């Protein structure tokens, strides 16, 4: 149960109940990407505006569990207003935090350990670290992030 409380921290439940930046940006200028978690059916749509190398607006829609929804909500708050380069870095940092443990899922364990992540650089996002104890939920937590990366990739940003 202690692990479970780590997973469902108050901040996560808060972002789940009241997701930030909910909705969809339309119009030509909006970048967009859709993400899927085939295992549980979670779907996400990330739309954003990038002006002058900065993410000026971002909206999230779709359906999913508390982890995928709150992670996307936390992500939107973390990247809004940030330069793309910094966003890219945050994505990498977050994914590293998760991948360490994803690797453990697929592996007998003798792969080289990735660099540990300094949690302080993550701010509120650090609340998601409880997820790593639940390997099956990691794909929930990374869904929004992978989708954002996809949107940036598609626009060659």
């Amino acid at each position, binding site marked *: *149960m202690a692990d*479970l409380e780590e997973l*469902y921290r108050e901040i996560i*439940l808060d972002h789940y109940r009241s997701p930030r930046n909910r909705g969809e940006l339309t119009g030509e200028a909006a970048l967009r990407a859709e993400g899927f978690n085939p295992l*549980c059916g979670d779907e996400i749509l990330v739309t954003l505006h990038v002006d002058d190398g900065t993410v000026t607006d971002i909206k999230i829609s779709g359906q*999913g*569990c*508390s*982890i995928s929804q709150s992670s996307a909500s936390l992500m939107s708050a973390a990247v809004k207003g940030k330069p793309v380069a910094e966003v890219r870095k945050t994505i990498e940092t977050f994914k590293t935090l998760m991948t360490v443990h994803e690797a453990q899922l697929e592996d007998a364990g003798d792969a080289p350990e990735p660099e540990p992540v300094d949690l302080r650089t993550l701010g509120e996002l650090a609340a998601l670290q409880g997820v790593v104890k639940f390997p099956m939920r990691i794909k*929930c937590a990374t869904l929004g992030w992978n989708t954002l990366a996809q949107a940036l990739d598609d626009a060659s940003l």
Partner: protein
Amino acid sequence: MTDTSPLDVTAVRRDFPLLSRESHGRRISYLDTAASSLPPHAVVEAMDHYYETTHANVHRGVYETAEEATRLFESARTTIGRFLGAPDPAREIVFTRNTTESINLLARTWGEQHLGEDDAVVLTLMEHHANIVPWQMLAERTGVELRFLGLDDQLRLDLSNLDELLDGAKLLSVTAMSNVLGTVNAIGPLAAAAHAAGALIHVDGAQAALHLPHDVAALDIDFLSLSGHKMLGPTGIGVLWGRAELLADLPPFLGGGGMILDVRTDRFIPADAPQRFEAGTPPIAEAVGLAEAVRYISGLGVETIHAHESMLTTYALDRLEAAFGDGITIYGPPAGPDRGGVISFELGDVHAHDIAQILDSVGVCVRPGHHCAKPLMRHLGVQAAARASFGPYSGHDDVDALVAGLQQATTVFL
């Protein structure tokens, strides 16, 4: 409160070693039989015994263990065929990997031979992906039309336009029981309707095999698919049963050793059914295990298992209703003889994934997601549902643990 069951669940549980393990310090409540059933010790032991005293490749050896292995393998065919009421098991039981492969085999052989642009296959909205995607792949190749029978508002098959859909169709392919709704379909009348329309009928028996009596001859069906791991047997084996005269006319599925009469560099001659469809070394130990599973099921009695699970389903539906009232949405027909032991639900705003996670922490195993039935989920308007499902080893205490765990979930997400 706990109606007397025709099964002595405490005694049955002793046969299932996994049930004596703990999970997160709790007794395990395994409520995921619809995904995969647990094997009783006898099944594991039959395979061990095979591996440790008898293992050899089948069909071609004359030494003692190879003869014994061949006899065990072929008698597994007979045992399983008899269990299904097959008139001629030695010619009608094809071993595959799972239900999915059985249906692909059917689509690739019978389907490619008989279905073209002007033909249609009738499926239903409650089918598992295993009974949809192989037909979609066939449609891509041959242009055959796929039609879907809908559902009524109690989530049973809506038969009002069955004859219309069957008009011009060559096959009706339908599940005996929904792995999401628990709906049990009346196969006999469906078979009669299909035949009256000049179509054949294939039954996806994956979900029903452990829980419902089967008799392919009495039901008058043409093909039936099964998975070992959903009927107390091992992984890695499935069955396609087909009427002997139908199988005899089919082209081969996969090519290789065991399915040929002769091979030259420029051609091959295929063997007769069922060998024609069993290319390469078959799942031998798995066949031995599945035969043992069938003996175990017959020992308990499929009718008894069904009665036990019906009672448990009624109990669970009542308790969930009493505990959560309008807060819970349960997808499936009301309790009754055509309601199998599968309960899919949504609980207020708590996502299925979170429900399953919280239940796990108290040792209750349920499955969240689309359950490989996305067309059905779209029809229901749900993205993911939590599902609890029963086996002969499930008891009232498992239902109680489920309800208690769900109560806890609602407090976390209050």
